């Protein structure tokens, strides 16, 4: 301790203190403040940039998911439209089919009816013809049969017989 005090040089102490305090003050003004400020600014700008990048990333992801939603929606819409179109087509085809078959049936029915009519007319015509013919035949037969008295008499007898039976 005594040696340390003996070694102590006031001049050196003074110069060291003076120069060192001067150095602190000078460096504070001309070096440390600008350096630390620059470093801090850079750090904050890096931080900001990172944050911005993060935000951009988030936005991008959002956009992407939006796009996907949109795509999905579009796809769904397309599918729906296709489905609708298909249904419409099926419906139209089915309707057409039913209409056509109804029409055909109607035509067939009409045809059948007119055939029936024609048939009936033909039958009636035939009947009339047959009646006329029958009358003519009967006339001719009667003329033939009743041409003699005997034959007239047998006929009357037969008719009387039949009446008696009844």
């Amino acid at each position, binding site marked *: 301790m005594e*040696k*340390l005090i*003996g*070694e*102590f*040089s*006031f*001049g*050196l*102490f*003074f*110069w*060291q*203190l003076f*120069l*060192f*305090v*001067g*150095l*602190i003050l*000078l*460096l*504070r003004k*001309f*070096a*440390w*403040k*600008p*350096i*630390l400020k*620059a*470093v801090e*600014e*850079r750090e904050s*700008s890096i931080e900001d940039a990172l944050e911005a990048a993060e935000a951009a990333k988030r936005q991008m992801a959002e956009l992407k998911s939006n796009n996907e939603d949109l795509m999905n929606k579009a796809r769904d819409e397309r599918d729906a439209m296709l489905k609708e179109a298909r249904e419409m087509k099926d419906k139209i085809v089915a309707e057409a089919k039913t209409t056509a078959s109804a029409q055909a049936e109607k035509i067939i029915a009409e045809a059948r009816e007119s055939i029936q009519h024609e048939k009936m007319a033909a039958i009636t015509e035939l009947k009339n013809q047959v009646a006329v013919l029958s009358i003519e035949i009967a006339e001719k037969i009667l003329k033939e049969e009743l041409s003699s008295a005997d034959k007239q008499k047998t006929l009357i007898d037969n008719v009387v017989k039949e009446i008696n039976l009844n």
Partner: protein
Amino acid sequence: MMISPVVLLANPTDEHDTHQEDAHHEEVAVEESEDGGIKKEIKEYIAHHLMDSYDFGLYSYTNEDSTKTYVGFPLPVILIDGGLKVFSSSKFHHGEAVAEVGGSYYKLDHGKIYKTDAAGTITYDEHHHATNEMPLDFSITKNVVFILLVFLIMFFMFRGMAKSYAKGNALPKGIGRFLEPIILYIRNDIAIPNIGKKKYKKYMSYLLTVFFFVWIINLFGLTPLGVNVTNNIAVTFSLAILTYLITTFTANKDYWKHIFWMPGVPVPMKIVLAPIELLGTFIKPFSLMIRLYANITAGHVVLMSIIGMIFIFANWLGGSLSFLLAFVLGILELLVAALQAYIFTMLSALYFGMAVEEHHHDEEH
């Protein structure tokens, strides 16, 4: 032979014994064998190296006719002794002559300037301390020259670095690329953890300056220029007193409360603790001062002793082994130079942190 470095280490800076030609010469001469002369010379060299000096000596050698030739240049001596006296240290002729300035006579003795009579008589007390009057000495000594040099180096280096930031987009250039990580390290790993994010800013100037100053000046101590600044107690004292002053004057109420009236302990304990805590505030910077001083001094003494061993061995085996050892130690000292700067900065930051710490009494005590 092998004991010699131990002897050197045991009494490294005791220049009073080694230099005291008239009083001790006989005893020393008795102990000396034929290589005692070189041991003594090494011892003197180390002692001389550890001291400040008034001239910038690069080396000296003894001529054939046993006169000494000094290579170097003198530095200005500034004394306040009945007025300001400025003269060249060459007037002392390396302690051999009496310098006469403005009617006063001064003589160098063991690296200190004493006021003497015209004949240069220096009287000693029983401890071989000179009893002559000492003038107030503000000389630009070798150490002051190097402090000034580091001052200029640091100023221009960091000024240049600061300017390079202003130019570009806040990117370091040149030496800044090397220095910026260190500055950031001091900020992020020393200042902020110890002082806290809110208050570290006002201490940054001191912490950065002290770190780089101690580091650079320690590195200068490892150059062959033979300079050794941080092993002067005056230098470490002035650094430590700044830490003390900054701690004391920036301390908040809590700090003083914890010193004089420790919360959470019984009243008798408070009374006992107060002087201990108060003493602690002085011991902390004192330990800073001694730590830096002792580490650098020890490093230099060991390193120089081992270099000195090369001359003691004076053979190729011992010499090369000593050289190898000195080389390894030199590398270690490079580490110590940075480490001591780091420790000084770290502990200063720790003390500042204590001074501004906000205590939450409910939780902590």
